[in-house]
């Protein structure tokens, strides 16, 4: 993946991109800067975790859908087993996804997780268990989204291949059939 956004087009959904980045950046910024202003751990914890949870919701339900056309969730079927569902747009719409949008989506997703990991290591070094708790929660939320969307993307690719082979196969067989009927 390259470090620069693909050139030549603008963001298709600037508002959504903004919100996608906003909550992540707010959670990180608040956590890092709050030590300067607030003395109370409770406020830091609650606000950071709240922002991280909001970000999780926004990414999972809004920006994932709109920026890259992917969605994942979990269901419990009739036999009482838990089933993970992955959903993606059909291939035409997927091809029409704005490249800049999806670049931003994936990059910020991975970047936030890495940053939280660093912050976690810092608080580990300083033996601050309560801050480690905050970082742990935020990291869990980021990783959950990363895993979900990566699986979704892989499944989308697999489906594309399956669809392509299937279309080829069905076209092939119908060609053969029509060849035989002609003969």
């Amino acid at each position, binding site marked *: 993946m390259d470090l620069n956004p693909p050139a030549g087009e603008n963001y298709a*959904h600037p508002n*959504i991109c903004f919100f996608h980045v906003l909550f992540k950046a707010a959670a990180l910024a608040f956590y890092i800067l709050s030590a300067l202003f607030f003395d*109370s*751990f*409770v406020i830091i*914890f*609650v606000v950071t*975790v*709240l922002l991280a*949870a909001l970000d999780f*919701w926004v990414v999972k*339900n*809004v920006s994932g*859908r*709109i920026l890259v*056309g992917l*969605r994942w*969730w*979990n*269901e*419990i*079927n*009739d*036999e*009482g*087993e*838990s*089933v*993970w*569902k*992955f*959903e*993606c*747009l*059909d*291939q*035409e*719409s997927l091809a*029409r*996804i704005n490249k800049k949008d999806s670049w931003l989506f994936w990059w910020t997703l991975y970047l936030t997780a890495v940053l939280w990991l660093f912050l976690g290591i810092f608080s580990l070094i300083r033996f601050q*268990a*309560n801050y480690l*708790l905050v970082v742990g929660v935020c990291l869990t939320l980021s990783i959950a989204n990363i895993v979900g969307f990566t*699986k979704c993307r892989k*499944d*989308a690719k*697999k*489906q594309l291949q*399956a*669809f392509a082979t*299937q*279309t080829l196969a*069905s076209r092939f067989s119908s060609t053969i059939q029509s060849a035989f009927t002609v003969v």
Partner: protein
Amino acid sequence: MSHSDTIPLHSTSQSDIDEIENLINTHSSSVLPARPPSPPRASIPISSAPNPPPAFIPSNLPTPTNPNTTPVPPVSSAAPKPPLPPRASGPSGNISASGFGSPPNTLTEPVWDTVKRDLSRIVSNLKLVVFPNPFREDPGKALRDWDLWGPFFFIVFLGLTLSWSASVKKSEVFAVAFALLAAGAVILTLNVLLLGGHIIFFQSLSLLGYCLFPLDIGALICMLKDNVIVKVIVVAVTLAWSSWAAYPFISSAVNPRRKALALYPVLLMYVSVGFLIIAID
């Protein structure tokens, strides 16, 4: 919209047709991402679509699950009507709001719909778990639509209330309450699973979180009223309520001879939270 020039099928009958076709066609383990639709379906809601083959099967069908495919999540893709680009303000289409997870067209629904859907799910889960209702004997059905937002809010609220009531060491109180509840829920779930119980990890976490709701109310009342006797009574009542709420789910998930083993830690955790509420001044 989508039904302009076709048979105006209601969305739920569309999914019924899919269901019936699935039952007829398959017990094969391959999920069908794209198959050429049978004739009656070809006339169904694809208004200006180029052609039938891209009509993917909506994803919330109860696909016939074989046990060996469950570890691999069944993949299906949704068909928002192909010409529509994915945007938030797109037509919300025929969202058949259901208790079975996301309906087929959630990829193009407006954001506000998603918010409302999640909020109503929290409320309905709360009602199912905490208040008396006919489904309590069948836990698999009751919390089918688990979510973790409700438990998250309740745990944070409880922590905040306890922290507010405390006159010293507010931060520690909050951190302890949060960690205790979160870790406790995870450990209790593991306990049930290790006892050979049949419960799904997230479902159980969700349940234990929702059952905190009465204790939340108790903590709120105790914060407002500082009298010890009132506190003890309130905590006892809400504790009983919480335990009553959690009991059917846990007990029906395990072997009857191990019911007590599974229930005891749950009661222990709630009792310790109750003591925390009483002891904070």
